[in-house]
């Protein structure tokens, strides 16, 4: 039985900036959650707190009975494996081939020597190829990651996340650097993983229509605080205007088409 993810009064300060300010969230397993908000609202910081790439100034994060914010060493690495992270700039190793990049998702399971020698088992390679197949990337398996297009690189990053066999997938603006066609492929990939594998997805988005099209639940942030938390239909234009002001709404509408409408309807 998968557990739910709880953020309890979590804050993170950088000097005088309250990047995340007293955020409490309860995310049940299997939900597809979109986090929206203007640049600097604290969306990335929140995801990095959950994956423990940074530590909170205050508050606690729990996953079932695991107190995520207290994990250390191997337990911390196991947690990072359990909540895979996808970045806006993909964060792949350009000079390594696609297969090795995907196998990086297995490192938490490897011993020191086999990891340093880049030695993986046949089962692991099979897992990697299967993950690549789900994202239609098998022909690129032996290509250097740096030679792929942005959309392909982001799908490699998703395949890498998949072989981690995670419970949660965190995606920090995964489509912000992609064209609409590729953005659609990536979002569809995340949705498939969410529906077929029951993996919780928490995705930062910068466009409203994408959030509305894909998410079960939308969380809106501003200045580190959660200003709205509800279903997409509750997020009316009036609510958005209340939260962001007319200027903010304009900003969203200008960048409204980050995924293709056709695919959204399908």
């Amino acid at each position, binding site marked *: 039985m998968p557990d739910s993810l709880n953020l309890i009064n979590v804050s993170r300060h950088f000097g005088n900036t309250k990047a995340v300010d007293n955020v409490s969230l309860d995310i049940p397993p299997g939900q597809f959650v979109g986090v929206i908000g203007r640049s600097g609202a604290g969306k990335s910081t929140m995801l990095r707190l959950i994956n423990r790439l940074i530590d909170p100034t205050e508050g606690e994060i729990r996953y079932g009975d695991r107190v995520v914010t207290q994990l250390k060493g191997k337990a911390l*690495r196991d947690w990072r494996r359990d909540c895979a992270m996808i970045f806006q700039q993909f964060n792949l190793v350009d000079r390594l081939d696609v297969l090795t990049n995907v196998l990086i998702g297995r490192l938490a399971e490897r011993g020191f020597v086999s990891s340093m020698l880049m030695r993986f088992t046949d089962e692991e390679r099979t897992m990697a190829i299967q993950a690549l197949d789900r994202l239609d990337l098998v022909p690129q398996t032996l290509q250097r990651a740096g030679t792929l297009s942005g959309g392909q690189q982001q799908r490699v990053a998703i395949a890498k996340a998949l072989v981690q066999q995670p419970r949660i997938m965190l995606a920090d603006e995964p489509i912000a650097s992609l064209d609409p066609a590729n953005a659609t492929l990536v979002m569809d990939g995340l949705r498939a993983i969410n529906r077929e594998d029951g993996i919780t997805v928490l995705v930062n988005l910068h466009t409203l229509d994408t959030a509305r099209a894909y998410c079960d639940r939308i969380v809106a942030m501003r200045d580190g605080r959660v200003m709205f938390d509800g279903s997409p239909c509750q997020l009316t234009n009036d609510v958005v205007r209340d939260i962001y002001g007319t200027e903010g709404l304009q900003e969203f509408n200008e960048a409204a088409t980050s995924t293709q409408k056709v695919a959204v309807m399908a």
Partner: protein
Amino acid sequence: MSAIAEMTETVPDVGPSAFTQFERDFAARRRSARINWALGSALFFMLFFASAWIGDFFKITQVSLPDGTRAWRWIIGAGLPRLGEYVEKTLPVLRWESLGADFAEWFWRWKIWLKLLVETVLIAFMATGIGVIGGFLLSFPASRNLTPNKWVLFITRRLLELARTVPELVWALIFVFAFSVGPMAGVLAIAVHATGALGKLYSEVNENINMAPLEGVKASGGTWFDQIRYGAVPQVLPNIISYTLLRFEINVRSSSIIGYVGAGGLGQEFRTAMSFQEYTDLSALFIIIFLTVAVIDYGSEKLRHKMIGMGERA
């Protein structure tokens, strides 16, 4: 829309007053640049002349003239001819009619020299190998962006500094004392110095890498070692190989003199030649070393360019 609004907001500032302000600022900056330049040049020449003075460059010395009288002369003017005399002494007598015999006479110890030359190159090779491994391993904790904590950074940096600030010849003296005369002392001496020098160079390469791949490895549950192995090493490898080949060239030069203090290789022959006053041996040894270094430089340069080309193509 908002961009236009921002522009119109800033327009009122760009009037005639803004231009006069700019002209004033620009003139001020030019003035201060000129003053800095003048001060810098003055300081440089003062230091230069002070160094020359301390180094006896202006010294006047007494020399004997051909007619037996003594006279005062500027030391550099008086010394230069003697430089020629010394070089002349090391040159062999080569005559066209007995060229083969003269050459045989010049390179009379060629069997010993050939053996020592092989030893010299092997010392450099092995020392480079050890230095690369040591420098490579230490370069990661010694990089500001990669070090696990600041104590490890401090300690590894000081270690590398110690290894490279002590000259090879001094390390060689220490190791000859500890392990007795022979090539092992030479290998260790050059390896320690190369570790320090390469560790520093490698860590500078490390400090310029893109950190995003490392974050990607970390976010998947990788250890610090995994981050280095998968995120950093593939990025720095082409530079590492290039610096390593350069270092091999430098190490061949070092290993050819290190024998002077008994640490193996051709260097010991310089000492022998000097003590037996076999001055022509010196020019023979010089030619051997010069040719060896030239061949190795040429080869490794070719190899380096090939590597760099490969890195860019793939």
